[in-house]
């Protein structure tokens, strides 16, 4: 494994892939830093450009964007009090107060180094955990696969923002959007309503661009209050090593929390950073300082959100289950190159798995250098007016949706799903379960039908195999717990009062 990893590093450090990693990381940082843009939007728009590329080049660009965008949000969180992405939400609580009292550069540098540390720890987890997990996943059949995907969908829905009902509704709408087209077994049309263009189903890329980019841009078009922009003071851009290392316990704890949360399908950086921030505050001797410009808060949040990146790649390369929404795009990039993501990936395309590993570390190093060197220039991005950004990005959305299949129909699909995304916001439906269900449904259906065919149509067969039975029970518990727990709490409270 070490030899393959070293060979992969050599490949990714060749001039062309390395240039793509640098380009992706820089673009990701810029997208993360500009409020209204985010990593998902940038990667969705870049996907059409990677058609026909060598998959490793696509990985270099897209993983660079992933790492860059998660890290870039720190800049607007510190200088503008606007989290560049939901992952930077907790960072604003302490980075902005630090910036207001003249410590903007210190907050940014602590955040950048913490992000790098989180990225490296999650990279180590990816390298150490992926191979044994793949070996385990290779023993799975369609029963186990379906049970895992099913429990992942229930988990995503139950952990998403808002009520579980809304999470499940969003996931079910994702399933519905994945269904139109030809039945994979009988080739009968379903939910096509007589339109020939629907026989191939909705183009995944057009749906993703619509739901992520177009809906966000339309929402951003609404007038908002003018934000306070804090300028960096040029004389304070040097941070001693000791200023970082004295937070080593917080760094390690937050990195482990972020990596673990990243492994959970669809949970993502925002939950990781909230949990790490919460843990740091709870275990702190001075919890009252959190939220008033406390260095530990910035470090906990930024370490954890970057650590989710490596953690999220683990279930993707081992089982084909996206650990975060952005992993959905990475799966799409490989799928359009006829590479099937799952436990066979390490066996059939080991260079892809090792490519993810090496790119993740290189992108983190590039992110650290780029952000530390160009901090002052990046801070100026805060002043780019949305007025011009919104229509320009909309043009890129239209071309991106069209470029996949050269069909105007896909542009209409993108537009419709842009409005659909707005409806999601108004109805307070979480977007994560929708997108992940959309991607996982074909895989789930394939395995469900293969399992039923092999078991002569017996649904009980899912409970007769140990691994699938465990995951079905987990899914059942995840579904029932949020419904039962409030009742149990109410009942125990009543007993206590009596």
């Amino acid at each position, binding site marked *: 494994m070490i030899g393959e990893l070293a060979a992969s590093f050599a490949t990714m450090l060749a001039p062309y892939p390395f240039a793509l990693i640098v380009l992706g990381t820089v673009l990701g940082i810029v997208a993360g830093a500009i409020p209204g843009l985010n990593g998902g939007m940038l990667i969705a728009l870049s996907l059409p450009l990677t058609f026909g590329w060598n998959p490793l080049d696509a990985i270099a660009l897209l993983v660079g964007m992933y790492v860059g965008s998660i890290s870039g949000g720190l800049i607007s969180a510190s200088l503008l009090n606007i989290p560049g992405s939901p992952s930077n939400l907790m960072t604003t609580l302490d980075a902005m107060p630090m910036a207001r009292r003249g410590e903007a550069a210190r907050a940014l540098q602590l955040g950048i180094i913490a992000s790098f540390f989180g990225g490296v720890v999650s990279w180590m987890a990816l390298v150490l955990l992926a191979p044994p997990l793949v070996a385990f996943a290779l023993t799975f059949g369609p029963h186990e696969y379906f049970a895992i995907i099913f429990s992942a969908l229930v988990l995503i829905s139950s952990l998403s923002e808002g009520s579980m009902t809304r999470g499940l509704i969003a996931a079910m709408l994702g399933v519905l959007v994945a*269904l139109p087209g030809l039945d994979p077994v009988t080739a*009968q049309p379903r939910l096509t309503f007589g339109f020939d263009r629907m026989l191939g189903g909705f183009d995944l890329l057009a749906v993703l661009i619509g739901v992520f980019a177009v809906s966000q841009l*339309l929402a951003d078009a609404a007038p908002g209050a003018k934000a306070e922009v804090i300028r960096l003071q040029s004389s304070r851009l040097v941070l001693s090593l000791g200023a970082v290392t004295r937070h080593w316990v917080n760094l390690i704890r937050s990195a482990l929390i972020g990596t673990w949360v990243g492994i959970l399908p669809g949970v993502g950086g925002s939950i990781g950073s909230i949990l790490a921030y919460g843990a740091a505050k709870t275990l702190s001797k001075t919890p009252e300082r959190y939220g008033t410009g406390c260095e530990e808060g910035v470090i906990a949040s930024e370490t954890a959100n970057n650590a989710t990146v490596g953690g999220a790649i683990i279930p993707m390369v081992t089982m084909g289950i996206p650990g975060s929404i952005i992993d959905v795009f990475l799966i799409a990039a490989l799928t359009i190159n006829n590479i099937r993501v799952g436990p066979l990936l390490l066996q059939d395309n080991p260079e892809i798995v090792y490519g993810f590993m090496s790119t993740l570390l290189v992108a983190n190093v590039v992110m650290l250098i780029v952000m530390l060197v160009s901090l002052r220039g990046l801070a100026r991005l805060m002043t780019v007016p949305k*007025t011009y950004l919104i229509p*320009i990005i909309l043009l890129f959305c239209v071309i991106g949706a069209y470029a996949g299949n050269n069909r105007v129909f896909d542009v209409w699909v993108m537009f419709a799903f842009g409005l659909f995304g707005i409806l999601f916001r108004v109805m307070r439906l979480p977007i994560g379960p929708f997108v992940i269900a959309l991607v996982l449904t074909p895989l789930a*259906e394939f395995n469900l039908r293969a399992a039923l065919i092999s078991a002569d149509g017996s649904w009980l067969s899912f409970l007769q195999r140990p691994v699938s039975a465990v995951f079905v029970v987990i899914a059942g518990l995840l579904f029932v717990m949020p419904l039962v727990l409030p009742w149990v709490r109410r009942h125990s409270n009543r007993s206590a009062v009596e």
Partner: protein
Amino acid sequence: MQLSRRGFDVAAGVVLLLLGAFVWREGAAIPPSFLDTAFGTGYLVMLAGGALSVLACFLILEAVRGGRTAGQLTFDARLARPALTASILALFVLNLTFGLVPFYPSAAAMIFAIALGLGERAPRAVAIAAAAALAATAAAWVVFTQVFVVLIG
């Protein structure tokens, strides 16, 4: 205009319930195939439609019982800009569909119109919007049509 969040959620639940029922009916209408094995073509469609209907009932129940559904939903003048942006985008895609104006000139017009709609209309702002529209369209033409050979329009 203000709507109660509870009323909106009930209405959304009813729409989702009807959508689920419609999907169920579509699934049931798919005729059986000789290739059907243990799981017919329409079963998954019916399953998804049925599950959506049940979840919609839960949403309605949640809304009726209160809980997380308190508050107001405001539809006011702030929605004018997103609506204007969406309308201009729709016109742009409509033009792409029927090919009335070549793609890149219409793209420049779209950027200019949205930038004007969202920003100020002072002479300097109009000039900047026009310059931004031309520069962005030229950049898109170079990147997509010249470099990546996306033939559009």
